[in-house]
C-alpha cells in the first residue's frame, strides 16, 4: 500500500494502531454479532422499525417522521394489548410524539432525551428474555418518573415565558398599543373635524339668513 521510502513510518503507525485498536472486530463479516441480547429476531423487527423512526425524529422533527413513529407504535400496541407495562410505555411515547408534532423545534430540549430513554426502556422490556417481571415494572416506573419530570419542566418553562411576556411588552404588544393610540387619535381628529364642520355649517346658515334679511329689507324699501 505504501511506497518503500515511507515504509518505516507507516509500519510504526500500523503497529501503534494495532496496539490501540487491535482484536477489536472481525475482518470477515459477523452476522451473529447484531443485538446478541435479543434472542428472537422476528419479535425485534417492529422495534427496529420503531428505532429507525426515533432516529429520524432525533435527526429532524418532521410530520412524516412523527407520523411514521406513531403508526409503528400502534402496530406494536396491537401485538401487546394484554401487556400493561408495554401499553403504558407506548402511551408515554405517543404523548411525547404528539407534543413534538405540535411544537417541533420549539419543544422542550429534554423531550428527545426522554423519548429515547422511554424507547430504550420499551425495547428492553419487550425483547429482553432475562428481565424479571419486577425488573420490568421498575423500568416502567423509572420512565414514568422521567416523563413526569419533563411535564413539570414544560410547565415551568411556559410559566417562565408568560412571566417574561407580562414584564416586558413584546413587539406585538407594542404595536397593538401603538395601533390603539393611533385609532384613538384618529377618532379624536374625526370628532374635532365633525365639531368644526357643524359650527361652520351654523355660521353659513347664519350668514345666509342675515344676507336674506338684508335682501328682503331692500326689496321692501324699493317696493314702498
Amino acid at each position, binding site marked *: 500500500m505504501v511506497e518503500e521510502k515511507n515504509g518505516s513510518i507507516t509500519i510504526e503507525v500500523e503497529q501503534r494502531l494495532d496496539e490501540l*485498536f487491535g482484536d*477489536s472486530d472481525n475482518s470477515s463479516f459477523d452476522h451473529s454479532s447484531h443485538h446478541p441480547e435479543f434472542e428472537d429476531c422476528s419479535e425485534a423487527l417492529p422495534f427496529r422499525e420503531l428505532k429507525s423512526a426515533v432516529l429520524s425524529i432525533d435527526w429532524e*422533527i418532521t410530520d412524516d417522521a412523527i407520523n411514521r413513529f406513531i403508526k409503528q407504535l400502534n402496530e406494536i400496541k396491537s401485538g401487546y394489548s394484554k401487556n400493561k407495562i408495554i401499553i403504558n410505555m407506548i402511551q408515554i411515547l405517543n404523548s411525547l410524539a404528539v407534543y413534538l408534532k405540535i411544537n417541533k423545534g420549539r*419543544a422542550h430540549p429534554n423531550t428527545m432525551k426522554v423519548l429515547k430513554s422511554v424507547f430504550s426502556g420499551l425495547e428492553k422490556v419487550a425483547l429482553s428474555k432475562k428481565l424479571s417481571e419486577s425488573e420490568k415494572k421498575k423500568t416502567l416506573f423509572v420512565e414514568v418518573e422521567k416523563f413526569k419530570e419533563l411535564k413539570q419542566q414544560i410547565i415551568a418553562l411556559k410559566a417562565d415565558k408568560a412571566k417574561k411576556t407580562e414584564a416586558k411588552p413584546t413587539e406585538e404588544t407594542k404595536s397593538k398599543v401603538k395601533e390603539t393610540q393611533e385609532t384613538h387619535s384618529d377618532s379624536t381628529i374625526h370628532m374635532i373635524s365633525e365639531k368644526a364642520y357643524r359650527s361652520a355649517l351654523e355660521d353659513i346658515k347664519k350668514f345666509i339668513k342675515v344676507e336674506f334679511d338684508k335682501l328682503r329689507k331692500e326689496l321692501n324699501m324699493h317696493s314702498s
Partner: protein
Amino acid sequence: MAFINPKTKEVQTKIVYYGPGRGGKTTNLEYIYKKFNQRIKTDMVVIKTHGDRTLFFDFLPFDIGKIKGYDIKIQLYTVPGQVKYDATRKLVLRGVDGIVFVADSLVVRREKNILSLKNLRDNLSLYKKNISDMPLVLQYNKRDLAEQGIPLLPLQTLEQDLNSQLKVPSFEASALSGTNVAQTMKKIVLMTVASLQKQLI
C-alpha cells in the same frame, strides 16, 4: 493540510467521515469511542443544537503516540449528511487530510450515496482539492441488515456506483455492531500518514 508544529514536534491530522444522512457516520465514531475509550483516553465531543439533535458535527480526537519523535494526533470528524447542511459540511472539510465515505447499503439509499459522493467531490473542489488525490476509504455500512431480509445493494453495485473510478480500499461494515469499524479507521489513518509523509518529503 495537517497541522505540523516543529517546535513541539506535533502533527495533527484531520479525518472526516462523510456520506448521506442516516448512513452511520456518527455510529462509527460512537463505536470507536465506546470500544476503545480505555485505550485512547479521550472524550468525544458532540456539537448539538436546540432539541438535542445532532445537526452540526461529532469530533473524536486521539493520540497515537510518538512516531520518529513526532507526536501524532488524529482528529476524527463527522458531517451532517442531510442535503440542507451543506454549509456545515464545507466548513468541516476545511483542512481535511483523509476521508472515510460511509455509504448506506440499503437499496432505497442508492441515489443518496451517489449524490453525497458527488457533493463531496464538489465541496473538495472549493478547497482546490481533487478527490482522486485524497486519501479515501469507502465503507459499505449496514451489511448486517441482510440477515433480517432487508433488501441491500449488492457489493458489485456499490463498487460500480461509487468506486469504479476512484478504486480506493473499501470495507463491508456494520457500525452498529462494530464490524470493520476499526479496520476502516486504521486504513484511513495509515493512508493519511503515508500521504502526509509523501507531501513533506
